[in-house]
């Protein structure tokens, strides 16, 4: 439980940085989505049989949604989709759990 809270807080902080800090540093005119990169990186390294990544994905996604013009839930759904995709690749092709 503590671990979930810590990881969720970490991802929430990254979401805030993504919206209010990283826009100052575009790479070739594009601001890379560090949150998505971190999230995928975290999923690749983390045990995929744990559902620990659900909560951080939803919370940090909702933070990004607060800055977005899209419907609320767009970023959580996108992050959860990335999560399932990474899990599928890990289990089917890399045989990692």
């Amino acid at each position: 439980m503590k671990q979930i809270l810590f990881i969720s807080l970490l991802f929430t902080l990254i979401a805030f940085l993504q919206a209010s800090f990283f826009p100052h540093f575009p790479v070739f005119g594009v601001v890379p989505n560090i949150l998505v990169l971190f999230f995928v990186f975290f999923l690749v390294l983390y045990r995929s049989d744990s559902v620990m990544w659900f909560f951080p994905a939803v919370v940090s996604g909702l933070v990004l949604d607060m800055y977005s013009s899209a419907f609320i839930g767009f970023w959580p759904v996108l992050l959860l989709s990335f999560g399932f995709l990474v899990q599928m690749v890990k289990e089917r092709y890399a045989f990692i759990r």
Partner: protein
Amino acid sequence: MLSSSVKKRFLFPVILFLFILFFNFFPGPIRGFFHFVFAPFESLLWSVGSVEKKNNPFESENLMLKAEIAKLQDAKKENETLRIALALSKTSDFTFIVASILGKDAGSDTLVIRMPEQGIAKIGMPVITSDKVLAGKVSEVSDSFAKVLLISHPESSFDAKIPETNAVGLVRGQGRYRLLLDLVQKDEKLSLGNTVVTSSLGGTFPENLLVGTIKEIKDLPTQPFAQAFLEPFGNLQAEEFLLVITEF
């Protein structure tokens, strides 16, 4: 009867779906409340970012020290902006209010700004920098927060002109801070470095606000109109405050 494992499996998506559905019934107040709570933190992060942007040689400085510098610079910048705003209000024929930038949408060219008071901002109000450079227009309002659709957003388009040649055209946002001047008559002469400003034709923005300079001309014989890519004026990432024009 459903087994407990099936129940658990479906419980999370169902709760998430209901949660998101509930949020989408009141998106404005929810976003407004969020920015109301986190505005000081968002403002601080944005200030630290603008200081970082301006002082790249000092990258290795302690973050706490930077935050302190950012606070001081924030006050100084606010002072300077208000002075410029005061001077601008004496010389310009429009009225405006100063708003601080809180953040940027990760997926599009949209900024979140904080207004000094509730209920001032209205959808469609033009937003400029203190140097009279056009930034965009208000696209969404909630309490004392507003979203600014930048002129580089793909949904943004407005009439513009080149004062040197009197050529008129339509500036379209291309996303990622890129602008395209389109629908320019073929007989109009476009040159690199020409300044593009807003025109009063569309009525969306006041006349003669700076937009950008021509950096690349596309005048293909197969196309009925000439086009040009623009280099936007100013640097929005280094700005901490924007001016919302309330009347023009």
